[in-house]
């Protein structure tokens, strides 16, 4: 009788160890990550596929965004801190959807605020409006300029998801805006330990 209980408990333990509930959503179908060419925070040409070999956390936003974008970037800072604080395996990439105001210099200051804990720096990408549009579309990133009565000038409405790309340059997961840092970190860690996982 006791034996049956033990086996039962053991099975539950095994299941708990195997099951991982993802917080992100896998793209359907899974496939190569769309590539794009922009200008990095140093003013140098940069292709997303230059990051092949790393796990990439990709987010879009703009630096005149005081609320939502710093929240996203501080989440990505927390993910990096939890998973790869001193390493170079997880690369955070922030792409502006407001190229009118966000020069390479401003992108450097902005991402530089969030990556100062780490030896590996975040990428902050800008470009011409046409280049930004081409970088946004394949990830289903939507954005629009909104004139405002605010003394802070116009604002940009934008989707605020985070995209995960694996070292083989496949788009693995999309995290909706509300997903917390620890949830993204848990999914990323699971993938890093189970590269075959779907």
């Amino acid at each position, binding site marked *: 009788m006791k034996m049956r209980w033990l086996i039962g408990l053991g099975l539950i333990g095994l299941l708990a160890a195997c099951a991982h509930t993802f917080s992100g959503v896998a793209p359907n179908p899974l496939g190569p990550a769309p590539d794009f060419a922009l200008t990095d925070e140093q003013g140098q040409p940069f292709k997303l596929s230059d990051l092949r070999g790393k796990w990439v956390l990709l987010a879009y936003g703009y630096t005149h965004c*005081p609320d939502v974008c710093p929240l996203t970037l501080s989440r990505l800072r927390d993910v990096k801190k939890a998973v790869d604080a001193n390493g170079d395996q997880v690369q955070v990439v922030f792409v502006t959807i407001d190229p009118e105001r966000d020069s390479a210099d401003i992108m450097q200051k*902005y991402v530089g605020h969030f990556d100062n804990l780490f030896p590996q720096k975040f990428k902050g990408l800008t470009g011409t409006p046409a280049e930004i549009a081409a970088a946004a579309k394949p990830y289903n990133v939507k954005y629009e300029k909104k004139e405002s009565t605010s003394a802070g000038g116009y604002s940009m409405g934008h989707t605020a998801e985070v995209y995960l790309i694996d070292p083989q340059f496949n788009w693995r997961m999309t995290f909706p805006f509300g997903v917390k840092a620890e949830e993204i970190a848990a999914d990323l860690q699971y993938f890093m330990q189970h590269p075959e996982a779907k």
Partner: protein
Amino acid sequence: MKRVMVISVSLLLAAVLAACGPAAGGPTTGGVSVSDAWVRTPPISDQPGAAYLVIQNNGAADKLLSVTSDIAQTIELHESMESGGMMQMSPVPNILVPANGKVELKPGGFHMMLIGLTRPLKTGDKVQLTLNFEKAGKVPVTAEVREQ
């Protein structure tokens, strides 16, 4: 016996003092109390920043009309919300604080937008904000500058 008396009187005094002091959670004016005030360390000091706090109301409905501080030329009330699949941010004329309820100004929702920072703000700094309510009037609050 004498000792019991002394202890009782002390306890009574402590209770009276506790009742007179400010309520836990921050300054109280009228039915409104403000707590957990913080300013996000601005990533770039010459661009808009954001501040957050919690307003608890133990009285009749009130409205937060405006906020002033020496740290910014202009402070606007804003709201971030999802609309058409996108996060949008818009100024709001005021923020309603329901009767016997609370409102949280927090990332991704209502916030104070700090425009034209008058000095660089560093993590750990303490700054003063003055909230102006329709009924409760001016409520001063100290906010901590922090990353999140």
